[in-house]
């Protein structure tokens, strides 16, 4: 099986996983809208939580995977890790867009403003910008070996930075009295709401896996084409 065929196979499998996840998402939608009770104090807008939190989790998972793979690439120098890290970063950025749109839509009705500098929202924003920078750096480097090494360095730095950003933003946040009455988590979720949330978490994780498999396969296919175009190798 050539590298190309293996990549196409991964892509097919990834496509299947993605379809399963999308069906799962539809199920979550139906369950959240029709079969989960409306929260008394926050109203239907509270249901955004069942979509926003899992997507935020998948986004952060994607970025963490990129960071770990970057570390692996720097130690093992295997291009597979570089291509996977890049795939995970792109998927994370795409999911991040959904995260950063649903977040404020949830904050507005619940907390009164589209953007409150809540620790979690802010640190996810900075993490998102960090990995947009990662993709921008990759785009600016044509030699694939330099691109792999430099993005791995940035990936590792980003991995270590995220906890720092969270602590900084959290300390910054709690020192100012919270202007809003209700805390997002509210009382611990009743069982039916919790299961909706958990299913959504699983679905979003599966979705991430399906998308990253496809994007990784695409990265390999692009690399194979580049190699063919470069002409003959060495004896």
């Amino acid at each position, binding site marked *: 099986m050539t590298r190309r065929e293996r*990549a196409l196979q991964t*892509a097919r499998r990834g496509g299947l996983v993605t379809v399963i996840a*999308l069906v799962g998402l539809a199920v979550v*939608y139906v369950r959240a809208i029709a079969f989960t009770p409306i929260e008394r104090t926050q109203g*239907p*807008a509270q249901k*955004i939580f069942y979509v926003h939190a899992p997507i935020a989790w998948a986004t952060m998972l994607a970025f963490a995977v990129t960071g770990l793979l970057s570390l692996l690439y720097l130690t093992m120098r295997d291009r597979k890790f570089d291509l996977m890290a890049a795939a995970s970063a792109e*998927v994370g950025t795409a999911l991040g867009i959904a995260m950063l*749109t649903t977040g404020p839509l949830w904050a507005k*009705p619940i907390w009164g403003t589209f953007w409150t500098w809540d620790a979690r929202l802010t640190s996810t924003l900075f993490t998102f910008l960090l990995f947009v920078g990662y993709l921008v750096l990759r785009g600016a480097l044509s030699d694939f070996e330099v691109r792999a090494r430099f993005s791995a360095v940035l990936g590792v730095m980003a991995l270590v930075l995220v906890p720092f950003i969270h602590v900084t933003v959290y300390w910054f946040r709690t020192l100012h009295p919270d202007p809003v009455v209700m805390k997002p988590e509210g009382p611990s979720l009743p069982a039916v709401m919790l299961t909706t949330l958990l299913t959504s978490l699983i679905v979003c994780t599966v979705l991430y896996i399906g998308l990253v498999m496809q994007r990784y396969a695409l990265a390999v296919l692009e690399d194979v084409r580049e190699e063919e175009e470069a002409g003959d190798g060495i004896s």
Partner: protein
Amino acid sequence: MGYPENSGYMVAAYTIAAVVVLVYSVTLYFRVRRYRDR
């Protein structure tokens, strides 16, 4: 009913999330397919 009437935000958030996820999934599928024909 007693709870604030803000379902509009929910509808907006659910649609945007679905659109983003679907658009990315579909574009990814077609980006890969371009390499499949040869």
